[in-house]
């Protein structure tokens, strides 16, 4: 592949939209993960009484929140994989075909 065709593809609307969508999805999910984890740390640092309050019986609010950070982190990776399989991969295939053709 010559350099010019690489340049042409980069100017291609489809590639532009592909890279832009991927950057946006990555950025939003990264910010969400940062918010979830540092939100949790901030709660521990600034609002211990909330996490210590009782939910039911001996269980404190902090336990489901802590476990929730783990589960949510995993769900976010699932959301990304799902998006990439359904939306990103077909776009990649299209761009690849353009280069091949």
């Amino acid at each position, binding site marked *: *592949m010559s*350099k010019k065709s*690489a*340049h042409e*593809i*980069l100017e291609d609307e489809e*590639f532009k939209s*592909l*890279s832009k969508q*991927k950057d946006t*999805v*990555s*950025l939003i*999910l*990264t910010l969400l*993960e*940062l918010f*979830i*984890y*540092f939100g*949790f*740390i*901030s709660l*521990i*640092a*600034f609002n*211990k009484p909330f*996490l*210590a309050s009782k939910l*039911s*019986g*001996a*269980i*404190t609010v*902090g*336990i489901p929140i*802590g*476990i929730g*950070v*783990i*589960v949510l*982190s*995993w769900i*976010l*990776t*699932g959301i*990304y*994989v799902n998006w*990439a*399989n359904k939306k990103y*991969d077909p776009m*990649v295939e299209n*761009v*690849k075909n353009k*280069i091949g053709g």
Partner: protein
Amino acid sequence: MQTVIGQTNPVAIFFFLLFVAVTLAITYWAAKRTRTTKEFYAAGRSITGFQNGLALAGDYMSAASFLGIAGLVSTKGYDGLIYSVGWLVGWPIIMFLIAEPLRNLGKYTFADVVAYRLNQRPIRSAAALGSIITVLTYLTAQMVGAGTLIKLMFGLPYEVAVVIVGCLMIAYVLFGGMLATTWVQIIKAVLLLGGATLLVILTLAQFGFNYGELFSQAAQRYGDKFLEPGGLVTNPVDAFSLGLALMFGTAGLPHILMRFYTVPNAKEARKSVFYATGFIGYFYILTFTIGFGAAVLVGQDIIKGIDKGGNMAAPLLAEVLGGNIFLGFLAAVAFATILAVVAGLTLAGASALSHDLYVGVIRKGQSAEKEEVKVAKVATLILGITAIFLGIIFKGQNVAFMVGLAFAVAASANFPALFMSIVWKRFTTKGAVASILTGLVLATVLIILSPTVWVDVFKNPSPIFPLKNPGLISMAAAFIVGIAVSLATREPSAEAKFEEEKLRTYVGIGAE
């Protein structure tokens, strides 16, 4: 209670020998399939996303996280959960920012990606230094932990334990390369997840499968405070700094990054992070339950009586619930856990020495396939023996800071340069080298001056640098210096190659 922990345990020895026999058989099988560099470093890119997810989990979940976090939960309660959460949150970052571009752009090491558009020799020297420091500090911590834990569990002398671990890890990597290492990690992950699941089921059976009952008995015995955040997070800045180091350090660990080259393409790399995050998250939820179970069913007095740090909480719980057989099984699993992690680290360190330093710097990229494999094997041997020595030298030392240092260096020296090289067109060789060295030097110097080393290890009355982990400062500095130096220099050749790199990052054209 009476415990047989620390005595020679025939069941544990049986399970351990079984594990060694199976893994050595796999190594023998793998050795015949490990001739080229692609096979030695990357298992011929033959690993599936699901397999790699298990192997990543096996590479990452150390004995320290299994025994240590269960122990921390059993002695400190809720604070143990806070601590374990920090070890998971780097995985989504790997997924969103690193895994696919890394797989598309590189060949065997993360330095391949940083050096993609830039000047090979300076970049590979700096990146290899970052890799080797990360690997050596992490490896030392693992070896010291291995010697201590095996001594506690099997009653084996410390030095003997370190030498056994060292020799086995050298055998796996030297003869079986990445293929053997991968299968050792997969088997370990299955054993560890299976063993921990069984332990949790047996624990919950004691409480009528009712978490509420487990927690209320823990609260009755140790007070409500046991289920509340305690003293772990007192200074928010400290907690943020450690959190950043854990998060972005995970995304800069050479032995983790290297695993993404074992799958055939970016799609499988992406899948493997999803599986790995699920397995590791599930595992931390299990250890949380195990810690509470041990606190109630074994009791803190007995746990702390055997080991002050609480490291024997999980094995003791296994003994109470499943007798000698389950204890023996779990002890052998802990041994296997150590082996899988140190093998991954040794392979990553060896590839930095051979692929980046020897081939990339000394031979300027001109090296025959056979020669590189040979050099990689010599590097494995050197690194393995170094690890055994470091393990013995640091016997009885407080090495907890070394894990913190490994993550701080990974987050400060490795991650910023890797990330900027993928996304930023104007990034230059000088900028990358400056960024890596800034991160490396600052992380190392600041951790020495921090409370973790200056006070806890050197016994000075007060620290010179206030934060326990320097991540916040050293990572920010690495980014700032990298950006400033890149803006002050120009590298037209690197800018010209960015288009081609971008196409490869997103679409995977030309990926190996």
